[in-house]
């Protein structure tokens, strides 16, 4: 495989960018437009709806040149994009919650076919108890299906990451679909100041499009896409193994590519986001709390207050959740003696948050024992306030001297 080369030299100083006040869903739509997809397929669902409405309006107003397919459901939404991608299209959609569940069959298949489709998940809790409000349960449920999943903290990060996602997905060492996760309600509807990159600068950043060099439905180079593979003997199972191993290699390669793309983004546009794991005031900390997505803003405020109060606490934020950034996280965990992990969803099997569950695996690799515990908050649209984070900080601090509780702490249970 080849490594993508830069199409144009990086300017020494980022160009001046247009400043706007937009909600997260509109920021995502603006990012999509700047990435110039050929095809978007849409089906509305709360809290994603305004995102696809913005996309439709951009196309209707001639501000975006893409074929829009108003499909009859999410299953077909992703299926249409698979067909488009196999014919060479850059493709995009967005969904969440029940829509993602309905989409699961083609969703599972997208990564196997190595199609670089970008899809926002405007995260939503549920499905039952019925909820239309935010929470990471939908995205967490599909974390083992081979998509790259990144979580945004701010509206600006939504806009920038949406563009970067295409470049990561289409990198020849990756060739995997990417979910850009933005928290329902808090990011989707949260209005914020953003800087809008210039189209020509984004074009230079994106480089040439080449999405079906590896697998295509094209009469000019006919091939059978996804013939049956496997069986009990012969070359079937080994063929399958090579496909799967290649997928896993693509996932691991994405960790490097995500870092490279974020670095280039920072150079070209002057905005720097931690690509995999962000450390906040971790140096000199005895213990840390760990966050994901938009909750991180309030968490950082709480850390500042705790530091002011003399507590030696820091913060670790995960941006790239799939693949799980094991090596990067190990570096951060090496700096601390105790850890509290805050999830916005549940892991039913382990009776803890899913991110905590993943982190336990990393802690095992640390080579020394540090106490840790799981916090679950922000379900079904609930706010996680600085107050909640102070409880998290206090409980985590106690781990330095007391045994760690087995049960998770449910932050909003008594709100």
């Amino acid at each position, binding site marked *: 495989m080849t490594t993508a080369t830069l199409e144009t030299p990086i300017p020494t100083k980022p160009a001046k960018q247009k400043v706007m006040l937009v909600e997260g869903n509109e920021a995502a739509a603006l990012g999509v437009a700047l990435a110039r997809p*050929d*095809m978007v397929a849409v089906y509305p669902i709360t809290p994603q709806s305004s995102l696809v409405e913005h996309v439709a309006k951009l196309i209707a107003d001639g501000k975006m040149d893409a074929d829009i397919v108003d499909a009859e459901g999410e*299953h077909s939404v992703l299926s*249409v994009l698979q*067909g488009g991608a196999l*014919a060479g299209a850059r493709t995009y959609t967005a969904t969440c919650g029940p829509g993602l569940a309905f989409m699961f069959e083609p969703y599972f298949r997208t990564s196997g076919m190595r199609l670089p489709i970008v899809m926002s998940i405007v995260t939503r809790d549920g499905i039952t108890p019925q909820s239309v409000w935010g929470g990471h349960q939908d995205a967490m449920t599909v974390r083992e299906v081979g998509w790259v999943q990144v979580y945004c903290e701010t509206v600006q990060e939504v806009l920038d990451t949406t563009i970067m996602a295409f470049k990561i997905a289409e990198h020849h060492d990756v060739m995997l679909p990417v979910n850009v996760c933005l928290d329902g309600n808090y990011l989707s509807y949260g209005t914020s100041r953003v800087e809008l990159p210039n189209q020509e600068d984004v074009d230079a950043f994106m480089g040439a499009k080449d999405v079906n060099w590896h697998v295509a439905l094209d009469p000019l180079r006919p091939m*059978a896409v*996804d013939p049956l593979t*496997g069986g009990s003997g012969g070359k079937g199972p080994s063929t399958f193994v090579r496909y799967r191993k290649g997928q896993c290699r693509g996932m691991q390669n994405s960790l490097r590519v995500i870092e490279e793309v974020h670095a280039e983004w920072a150079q070209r546009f002057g905005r720097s986001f931690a690509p995999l794991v962000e450390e906040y005031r971790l140096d000199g900390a005895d213990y840390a709390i760990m966050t994901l997505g938009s909750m991180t803003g309030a968490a950082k405020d709480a850390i500042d207050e705790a530091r002011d109060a003399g507590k030696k606490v820091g913060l670790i934020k995960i941006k790239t959740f799939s693949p799980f950034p094991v090596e990067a996280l190990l570096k951060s965990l090496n700096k601390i003696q105790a850890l509290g992990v805050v999830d916005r969803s549940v892991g039913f099997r382990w009776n803890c948050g899913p991110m905590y569950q993943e982190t336990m695996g990393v802690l095992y690799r640390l080579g020394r024992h540090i106490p840790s515990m799981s916090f679950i908050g922000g379900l079904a649209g609930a706010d996680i306030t600085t107050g909640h984070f102070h409880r998290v900080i206090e409980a985590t601090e106690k781990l330095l001297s007391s045994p760690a509780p087995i049960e998770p702490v449910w932050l909003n249970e008594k709100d």
Partner: protein
Amino acid sequence: MGTFGGAYNTIAFDANKCDGCGDCMTACATAKVGVGDTARSRIQIVGSADDGFELALCRQCADPKCVTVCPAAALTKNSASGVIDWNGDKCVDCLLCTVGCAYAGIALDAGTGHVAKCDTCDGAPACVPACPHDALTYITTSRIYNEVGDWEDLFAPGLAGCQGCNTELLMRHTLRRTGPETVLATPPGCVPGMGSVGFNGTTGTKVPVFHPLLTNTAAMLAGVKRQYKRVGREVLALAIAGDGGASDVGFQSLSGAAERNEQILFMVVDNEGYMNTGMQRSSCTPYGAWTSTTPVGQGTGSGGMPSQGKTQDAKNLPLIMVNHRCEYVATASTAYMEDLYDKLDKAIAASKRGFAYLHVYSPCTTGWRFPTDQNMEVARKAVETNFVMLWEYNPADGLHFTRPVDDPLPVTEYLKAMGRFRHLSEDQISHIQGKVVENLAFVKQMAHVAKA
């Protein structure tokens, strides 16, 4: 012509219609030797009313033994007409040709002392119009083969369909027609099951081909087509799907694509069930039919009904598609290839404008339980009994029958041809006959309304 030469017109014989009257022989002898001596006819009706009549006639073989054993180069296969020509100037009356033929197609004419054989009267055989019962026909359907024989077969040889299956025939003919600028979507079922998409890195298809999910054929294909349209390339997006994937779990994406008028050609091969996976019921399975999930047993099954096959009527998918006001909708049968070809041409043309839907009834020798040599016969009986109807629809002209059957056979003629209906009670048969009448009336009503 292709590798195997052309197909030619031929004199066909329907033994069921022959009463042994001998008028054909008289006509032949009169035309050929000027007297009505049937012994000198080159067409010989043999057999009896008890055993059935048979035809001894030159078959105009493609690989004629009589020609190979002629020492005098007096017999030649005429590549233009397909007739085996006899040259009297070269013939030495050795009779070796009569030793070569296994069917007495060339024999001694006692009147001349020479051998004589059918020459099809230069394309206007005297015997055919002489038959008072239409037992003889001079068949011209091979024109299809002559037309398409040179077109590239876009499937590899050796697809592993069941013996006697007509789906492979349908696939090969369809792809010959659509040509190489085609992307073929074929969801799980018999079509990929016989190796068209392939196994472990091999493929049976020469155009881009893929397995969609059983559920998303129309949607995935729509994506392919849209992108080629966007970049200005003319590519035909073709689906060949089973009835289960189209009428059941794949129906949503099918309906959605039809409603959006996606420019694709969606062909359903309706074998009335999930035949590839072991003959389970689909919504296209007809009432009363045995399937592996509507078995025949002593107990009661669906809704307290006795377990005597499927207890509901089939979903009429093509009529549902008409209600999407597609660019083109038609039903077809491999027993009526010319009709099918006409519809295929129209469907291909329509798919350049919008959604085209072709529903092909496809008897399944394995799942319906009939002998492997009976596929075309079963397909024909389905039409002759009005169990299925051949019609086409487009928004401008509405619906009309392409092969109306005004004097249908009783539906039992169809039902008795296969094992899946063997258990039917009188009540079940009368239910089916009633549905045939009802369906016919319904479609006729649509055709009438369309005309008005």
